[in-house]
């Protein structure tokens, strides 16, 4: 008799072959100009349960360009492990041909050239088509949204998330968990959640006063699908009040709370759950660590760190699925659940090529309806990119979008040094492309946008870099917050990612003079996205808009000011 583990392993191998051949095939098909929607969606329906996972959409309702990271370093046990491989290493690991559609979708190389050939990705009307197709094959498939959905665009900001809520409701999700949603303010989140036609989950969302589970969010929900009793347990972003302004949602406390996760798994199993799914916003490495500590979870649908992986990662008997960001991908996971156990799975990361997948016209209409009142503001052209400049954000240390934002802060706010947060959202702009106000808001929109200007000592600047670096490079994933390194303008530094906190960052240099940063000297620093209440200054989008308008054509030189050691 074949054991459950053998089943998983056998199925894993089948999935890997399926994934690899499928990916390689697309390259050939695309070369023949024959990439079709049917090929992208091709899937032999398997088992008796289907899960559909979308996550980290960041309010991108329309197709976008999104360049995947060039540098995404893992430390400790995750050094060189998925998802901490990029570029050619990533393509080699998954059998992806250079220059293929998958290479364009999943890696950074030749991004602007491939982008011209393969076009934009995402668009919630295309995602809707994919969801509908999966439901045509499996009518009771579960659609699960990993959060970071109601944040990240001009219209989302001005409608306080309502535009995205209206569009997502068209797709009829079954459950959702949360992160940036809370930066709308807890009152607004409760207003939306109260009217939500699906489950709002988070086993780790607690009442901060009494340290008890918050009443507004259920820990889990049961679903009966394909004759299987499924429990979906929510896991919101654990470090909300630390990485984002806690004063905007003071009633809530978060944390990983894996002991309670175990209790919830035990509780749903005792209540008859045959399949346990964790809809998580932990971040990939935290999910991997949690899967090693909590037993009894069959599937973790991972979000937050924006990784897109063509195959599941297996930890014990738990499979972890990573579905990318910004609407670029949808994951389909088919499961064979029998006798109360997951006996096998089949998985596909479906890339949403917007020119290949037919938009769902009903959803397009709703998207356009949300945008209509703001169309004039959205479409105003602020400037354009030079032919040598792609604007992107993802990567551990810098991105050209952030370099531009830091340049704007230094020039418009007369500062020595600029700081821009290491968030992972924000689509890309191709060379020679108009930059509209919508594009600028896609990389800056937030509810705490004030661009501060303040004096800091060299010692304090160093302390900030050390602190943020430890959020990224602490060897224990439970101490990682899932963002990238704070972006710095006007200053260079050296970082050894394998050192402990306090010893990673050195050689701080003020670029305009070439002098070392003096710990006791004071520097004028401009930045934005402070988590402190009462931060003063103009919103960052006004600062950058002025700068882009003054520049006309924007050219960003490659950033060579961060010297990375130990990668």
């Amino acid at each position: 008799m074949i054991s459950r583990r053998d089943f998983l392993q056998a199925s894993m191998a089948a999935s890997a072959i399926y994934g690899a051949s499928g990916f390689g095939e697309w390259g050939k098909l695309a070369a023949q100009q024959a990439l079709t929607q049917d090929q992208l969606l091709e899937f032999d329906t398997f088992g008796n349960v289907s899960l559909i996972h979308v996550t980290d959409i960041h309010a991108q309702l329309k197709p976008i360009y999104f360049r995947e990271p060039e540098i995404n370093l893992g430390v400790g046990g995750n050094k060189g492990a998925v998802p901490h491989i990029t570029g050619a290493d990533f393509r080699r690991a998954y059998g992806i041909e250079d220059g293929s559609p998958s290479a364009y979708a999943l890696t950074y190389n030749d991004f602007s050239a491939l982008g011209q050939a393969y076009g934009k990705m995402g668009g919630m009307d295309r995602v809707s088509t994919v969801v509908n197709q999966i439901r045509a094959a499996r009518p009771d498939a579960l659609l699960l949204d990993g959060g970071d959905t109601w944040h990240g665009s001009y219209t989302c900001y001005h409608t306080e998330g309502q535009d995205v809520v209206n569009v997502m409701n068209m797709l009829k999700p079954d459950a959702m968990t949360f992160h940036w949603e809370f930066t709308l303010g807890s009152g607004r989140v409760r207003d939306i959640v109260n009217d939500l036609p699906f489950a709002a989950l988070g086993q780790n969302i607690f009442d901060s006063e009494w340290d008890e589970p918050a009443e507004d969010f259920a820990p889990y929900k049961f679903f009966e699908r394909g004759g299987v009793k499924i429990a979906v347990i929510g896991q919101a972003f654990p470090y909300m009040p630390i990485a984002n302004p806690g004063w905007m949602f003071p009633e809530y406390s978060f944390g990983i709370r894996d002991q309670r996760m175990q209790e919830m798994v035990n509780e749903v199993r005792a209540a008859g759950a045959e399949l346990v799914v964790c809809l998580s916003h932990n971040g990939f490495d935290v999910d991997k660590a949690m899967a090693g500590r909590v037993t009894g979870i069959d599937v973790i649908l991972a979000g937050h760190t924006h990784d897109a992986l063509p195959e599941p990662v297996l930890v014990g008997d738990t499979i972890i699925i990573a579905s990318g960001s910004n609407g670029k991908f949808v994951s389909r996971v088919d499961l064979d659940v029998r006798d109360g156990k997951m006996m096998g799975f089949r998985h596909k990361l479906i890339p949403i090529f917007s020119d290949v997948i037919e938009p769902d016209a009903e959803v397009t209409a709703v998207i356009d309806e949300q945008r209509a009142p703001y169309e004039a503001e959205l479409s105003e052209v602020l400037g354009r990119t030079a032919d040598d400049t792609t604007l992107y954000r993802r990567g551990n240390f810098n991105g050209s979008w952030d370099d531009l934002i830091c340049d704007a802060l230094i020039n418009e706010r007369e500062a020595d040094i600029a700081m821009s947060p290491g968030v992972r959202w924000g689509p890309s702009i191709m060379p020679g492309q108009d930059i509209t106000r919508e594009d600028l808001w896609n990389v800056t929109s937030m509810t705490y946008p004030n661009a501060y200007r303040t004096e800091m000592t060299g010692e304090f600047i160093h302390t900030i870099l050390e602190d943020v670096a430890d959020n990224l490079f602490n060897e224990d994933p439970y101490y990682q917050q899932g963002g990238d390194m704070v972006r710095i303008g006007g200053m260079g530094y050296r970082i050894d990612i394998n050192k402990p906190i306090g010893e990673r960052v050195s050689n701080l240099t003020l670029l305009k003079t070439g002098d070392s940063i003096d710990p006791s000297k004071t520097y004028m620093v401009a930045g934005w996205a402070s988590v402190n209440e009462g931060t003063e200054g103009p919103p960052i989008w006004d600062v950058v808009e002025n700068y882009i308008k003054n520049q006309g054509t924007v050219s960003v030189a490659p950033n060579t000011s961060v010297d990375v050691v130990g990668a």
Partner: protein
Amino acid sequence: MNFTRRNTLWMAMGTAIATVLPFKAFADVDADIAAFTGGAEIGSEGITLVAPEIAENGNTVPVEVNAPGAEAIMILAAGNPTPAVGTFNFGPLAGSQFASTRIRLAGTQDVVAIARMPDGSFVQASQEVKVTIGGCGG
């Protein structure tokens, strides 16, 4: 034991003030432990300490400790100027040997709980709690 020493960072990114509290020597911690255990060897089974990996607010950090059968449990904040937090004593009729409280942490440090068992043995659990100026989420 490996204690993490760090300057205290009360202000989030974007403000210019860093408070630096000098930590006293860790002799205080060793002295507190010696006073509680009488220098006995300390095991690690049978005690569970629950504390956040990263404190949401260093001024009020929830901690829970559970040591079934214990007579007394001492909690220490190893990096605080005064490490002793408190000792919970359980009588013979206590239904459980569980305690939860909130403590103030002067910076990133280990929180330590030591339980004295009825047979005179001791068990210990510890966890590093980070007090951070905050990063920027994805």
